[in-house]
Each structure stands twice: as C-alpha cells, then as structure tokens.
C-alpha cells in the first residue's frame, strides 16, 4: 500500500478533532462532532465538506466538443456554456467506469469532475479516447473542491463574497474571484439540499475554508454524514451502486441517456439484467453492503449501501436485484445478525430536499 494522500485541509481536520480514515487512497475526515449532528445541520443550515480528493480535468482544443461527446455518455449537444451535466464514462460493454459531471466553459472548452478512486483510470481512458489535437489536463492537484450544502448555503456564500448567486440555476455555474483568486461556483451537490460545489486554487483552500466557517450557520461535515445525506437523497455512490458490471439504465438512469452521439458503450448501455432498487427496512437494524437479498428463500440480489436514515428515522438501502425478481414489493435481507424485512421504496427516500428550489 502506498502512503495515503492528503488534501490542503487534512491538517486542519486533524487539529479540529476530526476522526480521520482512509477513503479512496486519501486521508479524509469521517466526522467532527458526530454523523447525526452533521447530517441534521446540513439539512437545516449549511454543511462544509472537504472534497479536494476528487479529480478535475480540463478538456479543450479544436474538436473537443465532438470528441468528448464520443468519450462520455453526456448529451453535450444540449449543454450550454455556464451549465454542467451528470453522466458516465462507460466501458465498451456499456457498463460504468465512473460517474462524473461535465462543465461547459465554451464551444470546445470543458471541465470534467471525477471520483477520486477512479481518477487515474479515467484520465487514461479519456486520453486514449480523445485525439491528440484535444488537450486533456489533470488539474486535480492545484484545484481544491469545497462543497457548501444546505438551505443557508446561498446566503452564506453571498455574505462572504458580496455577490448575488440567485441567478445560478440548478446544474448551472459561474466563474468569479475571491480574495484575488479564481472561484468557480457550481449549483450542484451530493446532499439533496440547496448547495454549491466550489472550486478554488489549492493554495487558497485553507483561507477559503476558514472564511466560510466564520459564518455561524456553517459547520464542517465529514464523509460519514455525506454518505447518509446522499443515500437519503437516492444518489448513487461509485463502487457501491455503480460499477463495471452494471449500466446506467439498470441503475435507473436510462432517462438521462439522451445523447445522439455514438459514444463508447452506447449499444450495451440499455440492456437490463439487474435493477437498482431502493428499499425501506423494518426495524432499526441496518442492512449493509454485501448482504444478500432473498425472494421466496432464493437469493436474487445484493445490498450495495444501507444505513439508518437520520432524517427519516428508519433504515434504508440500495440493492441490485435480478430483473425477474425486481417487480416484487417485499424482500428478505440476510444481514449479519438477523433476517430483515425490506419493502420497495420510491426514490428519493427523503423528499423534502431543497436542491432544486427556485430562487427569486
């Protein structure tokens, strides 16, 4: 095992009592005060997340638009400058190598944000898929990504910068500056709440982080609550709900596969063998990643994520279930210490999130 990588904020986390743990090869904060407190604070006010481990690549040059349209599943034909879109890097079979967000800066000018664990592989895949005339630059080391999420996030960000971000739509972004450095404000996130993903130079990360935390509405939030927040919001996590053995249609995201480009994996991306289901579990005992899902005593699937859901007061889970069994409404989950009754649930599990809130 190689050494764990650190973000510009790792020392701050350790100095402020965070429980640290390895995540995707990085030493990351799991919690500060506690997962439940941080979760609720994000739902009610604003949580601040160190997401510097994620990867950012710039893609530019003549033909970048056409070439990227073939390299990823995103429909770039309808993506305007100033907007970003969620989608996938697929393998030849149509299964998911990574999920990522593509930002359009200009006609042939993009940023793509990828998962930390997949970043090196994604870079190699994209380099191989893009012609030499298109530049692909990994700016992950010099870019800090800090997420500010929660109903108070807009007011906090406007108070700090003195700017108005009410005009930024969901999955829209603007480039501005803070304290003389570039700041990209993206109205996106992974919590289901109104919020922003903020990109600043790594050299500015600590100052920006501390400036945001001066606002009493903001608390630092670790990866523990990030996981419960995204799970309640029905958002998949690569390596759990998404992997190289399942395609986007199986993961319930067939509707967004509208690209007319002949992208890698397109032919296989709609074949359904298993379905990703949301499950609500009876009682307070959690189902966990790897637990078997049974129907009429027969194993028909596997749990990918499961947790007590703090905003719902009950246990929820995602599971891959064989297509033939996926129409059933109740299942049994073979958890480590007991068999649990599970009932299919509509996504998102938590329906009161503010992420898409219209701003006047």
């Amino acid at each position, binding site marked *: 095992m190689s050494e764990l990588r650190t973000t510009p904020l790792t020392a701050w986390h350790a100095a402020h009592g965070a*429980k640290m743990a390895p995540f995707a090869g990085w030493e990351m904060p*799991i*919690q500060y005060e*506690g*997962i*439940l407190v941080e979760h609720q604070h994000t739902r009610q006010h604003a949580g601040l997340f160190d997401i510097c481990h994620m990867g950012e690549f710039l893609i530019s040059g003549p033909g970048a638009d056409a070439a990227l349209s073939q390299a990823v599943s995103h429909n770039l034909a309808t993506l305007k400058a100033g907007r970003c879109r969620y989608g996938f890097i697929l393998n030849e079979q149509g299964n998911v190598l990574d999920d990522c967000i593509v930002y359009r800066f200009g006609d042939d000018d993009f940023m793509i944000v990828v998962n930390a664990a997949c970043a090196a592989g994604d870079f190699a895949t994209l380099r191989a898929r893009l012609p030499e005339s298109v530049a692909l630059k990994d700016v992950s080391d010099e870019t800090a990504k800090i997420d500010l999420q929660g109903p108070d996030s807009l007011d906090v960000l406007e108070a700090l910068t003195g700017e108005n971000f009410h005009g930024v739509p969901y999955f829209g972004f603007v480039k501005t500056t803070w304290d003389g450095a570039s700041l990209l404000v993206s109205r996106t996130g992974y919590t289901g709440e109104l919020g922003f993903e903020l990109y600043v130079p790594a050299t500015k990360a600590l100052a920006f982080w501390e400036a945001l935390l001066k606002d009493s509405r903001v608390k630092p939030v670790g990866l*523990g609550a990030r996981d*419960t927040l995204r799970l309640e919001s029905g958002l998949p996590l690569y390596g759990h709900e998404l992997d190289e053995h399942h395609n986007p249609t199986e993961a319930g995201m067939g509707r967004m596969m509208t690209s007319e480009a002949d992208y890698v994996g397109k032919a296989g991306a709609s074949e359904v063998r298993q379905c990703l289901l949301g499950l609500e579990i009876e*009682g*307070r*005992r*959690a189902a*966990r990643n790897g637990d078997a899902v049974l129907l009429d005593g027969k194993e028909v699937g596997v749990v990918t994520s499961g*947790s*007590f859901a*703090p905003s719902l007061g009950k246990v929820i889970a995602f599971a891959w279930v064989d297509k033939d069994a996926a129409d059933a409404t109740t299942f049994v989950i073979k958890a*480590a*210490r007991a068999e649990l009754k599970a009932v299919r649930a509509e996504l998102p599990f938590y329906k009161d999130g503010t992420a898409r809130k219209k701003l006047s």
Partner: protein
Amino acid sequence: MSYPADLLYSPSHEWVKIEGDEAVVGITFFAQESLGDITYVELPAVGDAVTADKEFGSVESVKAASDLISPVNGEVTAVNDALENAPEQINATPYDAWIIRVKLSGKPEGLMDAAAYEEHCKNEHH
C-alpha cells in the same frame, strides 16, 4: 474520556455496577465514542441466561455494528426498553443508559477498576 470510580470494567468496554447480588451493565464512554452515533440496540429478554465473555446482544451505529459481551454470569432480571426507540441515550449519557440488569451467579472475575481500565483504553488508542 470519563471513568467513574464506582464501576468495574471489561476489556471489551462494558461497565458493571455491582448492587448486592445484582449487576447493572452498560457500555463505556470509550465504546460509544468508538462506535459513533448509536442507532440500534438488540436487547436480550428478561429471564435469559448470560455468560461472561459471551455475546448477550448487539449495538449498531451509523457506520458500524458490534456485539455486546457480558462481563458477568447470571440471569437477566430487567432490560432498558427505552433504548429500543432512543438508543442515542447511550451516546449522550453512557453511564446512565444501562442496558441490562443481571442476577449474579458467582463473583465477577477478570474485571478492571477505573484506573486499570483507563490504562487499557490508552493502549487501544495507539
């Protein structure tokens, strides 16, 4: 960290309060802090036999699950039902949020006093 002097402690982080021929059992501050926010407690039934060093139930937190290990031999005379719907009481007040009460059969063995337990925790903290 806190280590009340009137309690005895097991290596697996349960606390024991001896009251005559009964023992009250819970989990320590160290245990609840290691687990994080507790979301579920599996309790035994009144009348169940418990055996020292053997599982008598379990606790789950948002991130982890752990067996509860009995520090004593005996029979369960009461369980703290309130924990079924409010397991977070263990995080808030680990030494008040008792889990079971046991009628002892024999004198408890292999338990630590507060000073020895504090040392034990320091060693587990790396």
